[in-house]
């Protein structure tokens, strides 16, 4: 009890603003979403018809929704794989005491400051079917000139590149912090014992980094599911032909274009289940971070 103040009322007063905001704007709406998911709702009219689990049944049997789920999973997998691989490789390079490494580290942080909408716009420019440098490069290498405004699979690839690029800065900062925690003596001892650079990396650095990698895996997945709306809206609006119609975009369309609040709320609940799983995974990992760190 050393160093603690004896006030009984003050802690409640200090917590009140946070708790009030959370209850009013987060908990109550979340519970309301659960309720609405069981109804067919006419927006703003106050009229709602109880339909039980029909909304969920409709979603899970709907080809459009299942396709959207598939797109989301491929998108998330792409973001995580591309983003983590690239940022780990770059972080390993940037962590070396090289001249100019500091400058590079600052430059690499840039994309983190950009919004998904700005990142999307910049990559739409890069992949402009006529003049974009990325298009020009692809044409030079493959001889093809794909157009992501027509070709669905290619469009998904393009939004993955844009989305992963935006997270690079964030990932690199965490990998760099993690790399600093790898004991120098351990690596040197291994090198003295004749282990090559690759072996030192996979046997020593990578395992010690694993909590950071795992944390970033969860963060990038959450990002891919929930924070790329602006990027999709600016670049493809879910097209062409639903090829980039990730779950959050589908939700937006059902809630605010089609005004189907019941079915949209059911989608919210399904998304909540996904966040729940990812968050629980993250909390379990938090314990391991303490162990390593």
């Amino acid at each position, binding site marked *: 009890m050393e*160093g603690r*103040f004896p006030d009984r009322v003050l802690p409640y007063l200090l917590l009140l603003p946070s708790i009030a905001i959370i209850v009013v704007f987060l908990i109550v709406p979340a519970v309301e979403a659960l309720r609405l998911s069981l109804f067919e709702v006419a927006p703003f009219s106050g009229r709602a018809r109880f339909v039980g689990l029909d909304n969920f049944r409709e979603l899970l049997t709907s080809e459009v929704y299942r396709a959207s789920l598939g797109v989301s999973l491929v998108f998330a997998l792409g973001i995580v794989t591309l983003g983590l691989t690239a940022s780990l490789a770059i972080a390993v390079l940037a962590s070396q005491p090289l001249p100019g490494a500091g400058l590079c580290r600052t*430059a*690499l942080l840039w994309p983190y400051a950009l919004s998904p909408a700005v990142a999307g716009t910049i990559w739409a420019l890069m992949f402009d079917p006529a003049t974009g440098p990325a298009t020009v490069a692809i044409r030079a290498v493959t001889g093809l000139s794909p157009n992501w405004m027509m070709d669905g699979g290619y469009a998904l690839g393009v939004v993955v590149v844009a989305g992963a*690029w935006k997270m690079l800065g964030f990932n690199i900062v965490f990998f760099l912090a993690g790399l600093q925690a790898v004991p120098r003596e351990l690596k040197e001892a291994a090198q003295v014992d004749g282990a090559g650079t690759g072996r030192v990396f996979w046997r020593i650095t990578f395992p010690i980094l694993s909590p950071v990698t795992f944390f970033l895996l969860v963060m990038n997945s959450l990002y891919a599911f929930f924070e790329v709306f602006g990027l999709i809206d600016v670049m493809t609006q879910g097209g062409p032909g639903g090829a980039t119609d990730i779950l959050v975009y589908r939700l937006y369309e059902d809630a605010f274009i089609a005004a189907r609040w019941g079915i*949209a*709320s059911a989608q*919210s609940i399904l998304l909540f289940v996904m*966040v729940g799983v990812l968050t629980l995974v993250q909390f379990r990992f938090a314990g391991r971070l303490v162990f390593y*760190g």
Partner: protein
Amino acid sequence: MARARAPRLASQALLALAALVVVFPVLYAAQISTLTFQEVFVFPPPLLPGRAFLDNLREAWEKVGLGRLLLNSAGIAAAVATGKIVLSLMAAFAFTYFRDFPGKRVCFVLILVTHMLPLPVRIVPTFQLMHDFGWVDSYQALTVPFFASATGTLLFRQFFLTVPPALSEAARVDGAGPIRFLLRILLPLSANNLAALFLVEFLYMWNEYLWPLIITTSDEMRVVQIGIKMLVATDAQAEWNVIMAGVVVAMLPPLLVLLALQRSFVRSIALGTEK
């Protein structure tokens, strides 16, 4: 040492190349923003900046009312970052510097739960709530619902736990109250964390897209992210030079905030992951 120099040079070149590839899209966008509409289609594109930036900016500015959008974004992002800092400081202080009180655990769990409730999982009812409050198309709607911060509360709590208890004990013995202790001693010690949190939350709010899109209806309330979309969507033939002038202006404030607070941000992360 000649053996070690070659791979060193190679890694240096690789790193420079990687940094260039990562930064290239931003530089290219900036370059395009200085060209005239005709110059955009010249191949290969000119390497040096053109002279049309101000013209492009003026056009973008007039097309979507960029001035108002920038002000809105800056005000909202600063307000939310400040609000989150104040509220999470208070909450973290309540959790760490008082004798255990009934309901402490429940409050802690409630704050953690915010991590599990991103906007999409409650979007329809939150929108409806704004409607019921009469907050649609208002600054309240763009700020107040964001004021609570699990990240901030955890960050400050974690930091407070590393502050020697002797400090608050001494303050208590000297007759200083808890608020005085928080403002005079704890707050200056938290400078790095304050800066890091401000950076993260300012960027988060400056970059927020979905909520402003659905909750604002008038041109006066729009934010700069939506302005970008409006620029992109105006014509069939994208006027990249004009769009990129808007993009450059939209990414400048967060870049400046990032550069100003980067040190604290990196240090704060290092504190979190190191021993």
